[in-house]
């Protein structure tokens, strides 16, 4: 089957001209996305004084590895933050994918009487939220999530957006006939879900997996709200804590007293070090991403009925 579709692909390719123009467009857009990263990289390798004199430049005026040296000696272990982020992302993504798919399966099945109601229940959470304060109170007073690693995982474990993405996929790609066939064979709904439907949904599993892993990896809000123990800081929080602090101190300098504000700023890493932190936080993800892509590009379409 694989070779059949490959042949068709070759026969069904776009024209050379189209291909070229696509390359040009995509190439240009890629440059637009790459330039900022290069800028950040350049700043992280620039000597701080040169930075103060000239601002951000694409090529470091004066080269310096000082920022990277600083980071790896900095207060809290960057490696530890990496470990936390990786764990939270893996656990969270797995949980999110599983739970969302399960919910979506139920609401996608015609034979489930209450499916419209439950769909609404899920969608409603996207349309109205009770605000940060109430969220905080529920998490810290009702349930004690303070300084627990679960605090970084559970709040994002269910996201109605992902549920809808799954549901849409199930509705359009899983034919009723497959399910009927399985039921004839006496399979329970659980069996159908885990063994059949899930297996047929790898592209959407990969998609939702990707989206939710990005959410988990990028998030620093949960850590800010619930984590005081530096041993549990995820990577992005380590970075954002500093960025936000710099912004905050600069904005209160007038009222708090310029010299106190300056003293506080001096305790924080300088600009090029902060950019180095961005590289350290994003770099590995950006480089690892191509490896996870194979699910999308290699045309992993196991088809519906062919199965």
């Amino acid at each position, binding site marked *: 089957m694989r070779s059949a579709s490959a042949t068709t692909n070759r026969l069904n390719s776009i024209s050379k001209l189209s291909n070229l123009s696509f390359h040009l467009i995509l190439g240009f857009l890629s440059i637009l996305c790459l330039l900022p990263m290069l800028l950040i990289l350049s700043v992280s390798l620039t000597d701080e004084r040169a930075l103060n004199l000239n601002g951000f430049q694409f090529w470091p005026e004066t080269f310096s590895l000082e920022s990277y040296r600083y980071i790896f000696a900095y207060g809290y272990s960057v490696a530890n933050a990496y470990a936390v982020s990786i764990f939270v992302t893996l656990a969270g993504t797995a949980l999110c994918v599983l739970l969302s798919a399960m919910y979506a399966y139920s609401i996608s099945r015609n034979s489930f009487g209450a499916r419209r109601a439950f769909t609404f229940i899920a969608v409603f959470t996207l349309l109205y939220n009770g605000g940060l304060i109430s969220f905080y109170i529920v*998490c810290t007073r009702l349930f004690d999530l303070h300084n627990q690693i679960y605090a970084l995982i559970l709040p994002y474990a269910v996201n109605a957006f992902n549920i809808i993405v799954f549901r*849409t996929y199930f509705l359009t790609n899983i034919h009723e006939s497959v399910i009927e066939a399985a039921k004839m064979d006496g399979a329970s709904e659980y069996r159908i879900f885990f063994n059949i439907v899930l297996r047929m949904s790898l592209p*959407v599993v990969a998609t939702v997996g990707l989206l939710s892993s990005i959410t988990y990896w990028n998030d620093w809000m949960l850590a800010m709200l619930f984590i005081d123990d530096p041993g549990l800081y995820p990577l992005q929080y380590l970075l954002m804590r500093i960025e936000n602090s710099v912004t905050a101190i600069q904005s209160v300098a007038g009222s708090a007293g310029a010299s106190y504000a300056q003293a506080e700023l001096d305790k924080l890493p300088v600009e090029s070090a902060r950019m180095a932190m961005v590289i350290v936080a994003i770099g590995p993800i950006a480089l690892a991403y191509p490896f996870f892509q194979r699910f999308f590009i290699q045309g992993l379409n196991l088809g519906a009925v062919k199965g």
Partner: protein
Amino acid sequence: MLFFKRLKRDVPFVVLLSPALVLMTVFSYLPMFAGIVAFKDFNYLDGFFGSPWAGWDNFKYLFQMDAYYITRNTVLYNVAFIFLGLVVSVALAIMLHELISKRFAKLYQSVLFFPALISWVIVSYIVYAFLSIDKGIVNNALTGWFGVEAVEWYSETVYWPYLIVFISIWKSAGYNAVIYLATIVSIDPEYYESAVLDGASKWKQFQYITLPMLTPVMIILTLLAIGKIFYADTGLFYQVPRNSGVLYPVTNVIDTYILNGLKGQGQIGMTAAAGLYQSFVGLVLVVVTNLIVRRRSKENALF
């Protein structure tokens, strides 16, 4: 009797959805109850449930003097984001899929994704690096290579609508394209095979196979985006333009108005009122749009 039979048959479904349901209740529904503080004059002595009622007082500030232009800004920008974002993301997805060299497609896709990984604070530094008045890369190029005058980017309103739309799409197009790409990839190749046999051109294939298969996803994503139409990301509208007052006519949106007006005032009720207002409008719009979609094609509706 029928009721219980149905109940029994539905048990597996309920079991499957209950873990997610529990989490949704805890993290989304329970916090909703405290939203009533929007209607109260909150004080610490009486707490959430004891504080006196304030009726609609906390909402008034959202409808005074500047209400028209901030709401207009918010809505117009979101409409642009939704529409242009959709076109760009779908176009990207298709281009990536059709590219002959899969290795390049992989490369492009990865790079296009980068902006989604950068936080808005960093984006604001980058934009500043380009647009800063004396050390900015753009101004240096303008005065150096082109010999024209530098532009005071942060003081000229005319450029910013384009800049903001551009930056917003730059940040999320790659991310959204992934969703569309996954959808395209899962289209049964048999459709294409039979289309080729029937002699359909690439363009016809797109029109009659790809597009219809993408429509459900496009509709869903658009519907969800409509729900957020009164929301604006302060990272984009406050930090990137450096909260430059001169630009307010084109950068001040509902969320930045609230930030500017209530910063440091501890007005729990007023901020809650804003959230309620924004959610409510979004909810109404989604329900209405959903009904319209439902009328045209039942299966594409959100609920």
